[in-house]
């Protein structure tokens, strides 16, 4: 994608060059409409040409147990008891494309994580150094590290399709329109109307999942049981810079100042006092009576 649309890069030293006004997009996943067909998983594999990964029965309708460097999208079939009934809380597990991405904050490699004006957060494997800090920086546990290539991979929201004016492959293939695509504001309105409809149907806790702690996301969910996001495998209050890492933003410049002050102090000391050469002993250091 063009440089003009680069909004933020990891470990950047200067502001990113985005000056172009582009629409920011969002994918809306209406969990209540999902029939669990996994068509989106296949479409993701096909479009991104990620190949088949063998799996085994582990007592669930879920295809694979976890995301992987080659599985960027996984429908998680969470079996949860709600009001004494067993419910399948199916969740589309893939990158949420945060407005304030924790992966980007944690990444030390310039340009390895790029955020575009249209809302897509992409990994640039050319620049990735394989430190895996993004994996721990992500509040949603999405990026996956490949032991062989030593790079990290995740959903790129079909950036190549979006650039060409198309919707992501998972959206295109969804037979029930559980996944929809559009500009963020349109999707927000759609999400609100879906929530209102769900509430009318008796899902009184239905809610939109678009967490503020990460500045909102470019994949939002409509959750029928919006009061219990954890049951969908979604954190209740995700933040971009978890815990101690937030201290880094001021500690780093403080450290740089200390190094600079140390260098200046050393120079000043040398210019003020100069070297103490061994010839100083001829001038009475230490006093002669103490000499051997």
């Amino acid at each position, binding site marked *: 994608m063009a440089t003009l649309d680069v909004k933020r890069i990891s470990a950047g030293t200067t502001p990113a060059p985005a000056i172009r006004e582009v629409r920011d997009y969002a994918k809306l996943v209406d969990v209540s409409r999902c029939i669990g067909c996994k068509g989106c998983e296949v479409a993701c594999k096909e479009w991104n040409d990620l190949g088949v990964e063998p799996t085994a029965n582990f007592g669930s309708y879920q295809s694979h147990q976890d995301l992987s460097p080659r599985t960027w999208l996984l429908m998680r079939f969470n079996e949860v008891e709600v009001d004494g009934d067993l419910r399948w809380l199916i969740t589309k597990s893939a990158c949420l494309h945060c407005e304030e991405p924790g992966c980007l904050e944690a990444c030390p490699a310039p340009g390895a994580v790029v955020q575009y004006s249209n809302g897509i957060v992409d990994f640039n494997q050319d620049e990735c*150094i394989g430190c895996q800090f993004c994996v721990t*920086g992500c509040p949603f546990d999405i990026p996956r590290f490949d032991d062989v290539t030593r790079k990290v991979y995740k959903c790129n929201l079909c950036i190549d399709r979006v650039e060409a004016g198309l919707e992501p492959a998972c959206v295109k293939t969804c037979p029930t329109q559980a996944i929809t695509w559009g500009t963020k504001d349109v999707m927000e309105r759609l999400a609100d109307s879906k929530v209102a409809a769900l509430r009318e149907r008796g899902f009184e806790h239905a809610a939109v999942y678009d967490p503020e702690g990460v500045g909102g996301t470019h994949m939002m969910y409509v959750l029928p049981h919006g009061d219990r996001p954890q049951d969908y495998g979604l954190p209740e209050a995700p933040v971009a810079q978890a815990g101690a890492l937030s201290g880094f933003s001021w*500690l780093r410049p403080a450290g740089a100042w200390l190094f600079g002050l140390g260098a200046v102090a*050393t120079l000043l000391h040398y210019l003020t006092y100069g070297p*103490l050469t*061994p010839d100083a002993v001829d001038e009475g*250091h230490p*006093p002669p009576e103490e*000499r051997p």
Partner: protein
Amino acid sequence: MRRERREIVPRFSAPQRVVHWTVGISFSGLLLSGLALAYPSLYWLTLLFGGGAATRILHPWIGVVYTVAIAAMAFMWARDMTLDRRDRRWLEEVPAYATHRTEKVPDAGKYNAGQKLYFWISIVLGVIFLVTGLPLWFPESFGPGLLGVMRLLHFLATVAGGLLLMMHVYLSTIAFPGTARGMVYGGVGRKWALLHHPAWLREQDRERD
């Protein structure tokens, strides 16, 4: 009969010199590669190690060398570096020492109190680097919360270690000429020993007589 006084007094054995330089060179490598990854503006330093990805792979392995060398250093020097009452008096005269008024500074033995403290801080920093570095080496085995704390502590230790290294190199080279030759060739000049470690020189002469 008293033998002729030596102009060069042996100070560091070859194994000690090897261990010292292993620590010194590995720590410098760690500092350069670590700062490269901590500061985006210093990221170009990764070129010294073969690029960003190679730096990420090498840094922890240099850390392994450093940790082993620090352990050897602790083992070799711990006894000589024990602080005693004389060291407290020396520490009170640090301002005089720092301004070259050596006549006010109590006679130091083989190591003065400043060197001893530098040694112990180095050992402690070595432990901190190891304990905080392992989670950063294998981040996925540890939780995100813990990793953030480790990253901060690792960074703080780097700042402390970098500043101390700066001081160490300055004092042992241009500030006190004649110091470095001891760690390079093993022996120091008699005048240097008399100036910096008079009590140690007396001891050496006694043993020789």
